[in-house]
């Protein structure tokens, strides 16, 4: 295989030298916290795998309430390796969300959101919401009784928002209740709307990272750490991490394939002890903490408002953290970040155990 001649064929027609110089100039700092740099790439890799497995699953899935459940059962029992690809898609989703939270908590603690990288934080935060919605919409597509109950609760919570609540819930559900219309709508979100929005936002997010370069934690900045070139050194490190991630996902897919519950019936009573997926547990637990009525106002509305406000403040955090924008240590915001992380983690664990 004469690679030189192939390369010459292209270079005779296109001038890649600027691109090559740009690629070679990308460096990655080396310091004690640099393991965090890999989390972003891992999420990108996992999302890529989800796109591929999702696309081939879409060849066989039927998004109609009468056929959805059956089509998945057929995929799992009748097609070659159907069980594997469904299981892989499930575990890929779980790992994507897990690493998303790790990436969020990591960048929060080392304050890579500070000036000039505020937009990277903003785009990333929106991506978090979108990927969680990916998880929710995909979950409903199974159309078993657990999925139906879970989505009823998740979309029902939106109604508590004042003014826009009912409208937003009707938009998400495609009506007042969770029905076949919701299935069609969630399918459209899951395979068309969300992928396009995600591609755009990820493109923006990654582009901004290339523009600003990798952020260095404040306490490491004064040490002036050395850098290693991305191509080829860190690229190969990334590849090793990705291969291990692939291995872990495949192993989880083989040993713990997800169950398929009985087909959903919108008229049947809600099953006992249903819990939403783990990434919703902290919201679920928070809602449980609030009594039905506080000072004459609906407890649930207050709870939802508090949660939305907390998330909004977290979204706008870079604008509040003036000290780190100036490059100074900002212990108050470190404690705030620790508070957020501790709350989410504790509530998730409590929700899981109860």
């Amino acid at each position: 295989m004469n690679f030189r001649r192939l390369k010459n064929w292209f270079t005779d027609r296109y001038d890649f030298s600027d691109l090559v110089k740009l690629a070679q100039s990308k460096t990655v700092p080396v310091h004690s916290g640099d393991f965090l740099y890999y989390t972003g790439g891992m999420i990108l890799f996992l999302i890529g795998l989800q796109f591929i497995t999702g696309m081939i699953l879409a060849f066989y899935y039927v998004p109609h309430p009468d056929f959805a459940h059956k089509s998945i059962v057929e995929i799992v029992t009748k097609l070659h390796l159907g069980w594997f690809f469904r299981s892989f898609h499930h575990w890929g989703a779980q790992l994507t969300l897990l690493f998303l939270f790790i990436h969020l908590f990591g960048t929060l603690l080392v304050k890579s959101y500070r000036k000039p990288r505020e937009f990277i934080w903003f785009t990333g935060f929106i991506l978090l919401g979108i990927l969680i919605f990916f998880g929710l919409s995909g979950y409903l597509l199974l159309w078993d009784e657990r999925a139906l109950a879970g989505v009823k609760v998740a979309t029902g919570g939106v109604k508590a928002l004042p003014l826009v609540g009912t409208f937003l819930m009707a938009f998400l559900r495609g009506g007042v209740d969770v029905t076949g219309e919701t299935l069609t709508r969630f399918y459209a979100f899951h395979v068309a709307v969300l992928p396009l929005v995600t591609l755009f936002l990820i493109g923006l997010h990654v582009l901004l990272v290339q523009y600003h370069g990798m952020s260095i934690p404040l306490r490491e900045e004064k040490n002036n750490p050395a850098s290693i070139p991305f191509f080829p050194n860190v690229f190969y490190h990334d590849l090793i991490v990705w291969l291990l991630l692939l291995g872990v996902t495949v192993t989880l897919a083989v040993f713990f394939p997800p169950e398929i519950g009985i087909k959903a019936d919108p008229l049947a009573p809600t099953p006992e002890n249903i819990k939403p997926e783990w990434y919703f547990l902290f919201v679920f637990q928070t809602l449980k903490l609030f009594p039905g009525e506080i000072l004459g106002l609906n407890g649930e509305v207050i709870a939802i408002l508090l949660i939305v406000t907390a998330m909004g403040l977290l979204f706008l955090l870079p604008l509040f953290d003036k000290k780190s924008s100036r490059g100074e240590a900002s212990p108050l915001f470190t404690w705030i970040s620790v508070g957020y992380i501790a709350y989410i983690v504790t509530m998730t664990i409590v929700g899981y155990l109860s």
Partner: protein
Amino acid sequence: MKKLFYTMIFLLLSVAPLWGAAAKIEVFPSAPYARYIIYESLAIFWLFIISLIVIIKLKLREIARTQKLGINREAAPIPQLE
């Protein structure tokens, strides 16, 4: 590899004509022979990954060696005759 996949396909298809569907939907092939093939494929898969990682590590060692020799350093500008 091919034999493994073909046997798995055969087993999956032979499970299809089951009168009176099972109460629990099988999300994982139940025939012991199919399970054995799957676990064996998993082991081979991990071997593939580990060897690929070893090869990459070899490449990285070589890259580190050549970089220490100074392959990346810019050459001093040569005085031109102009």
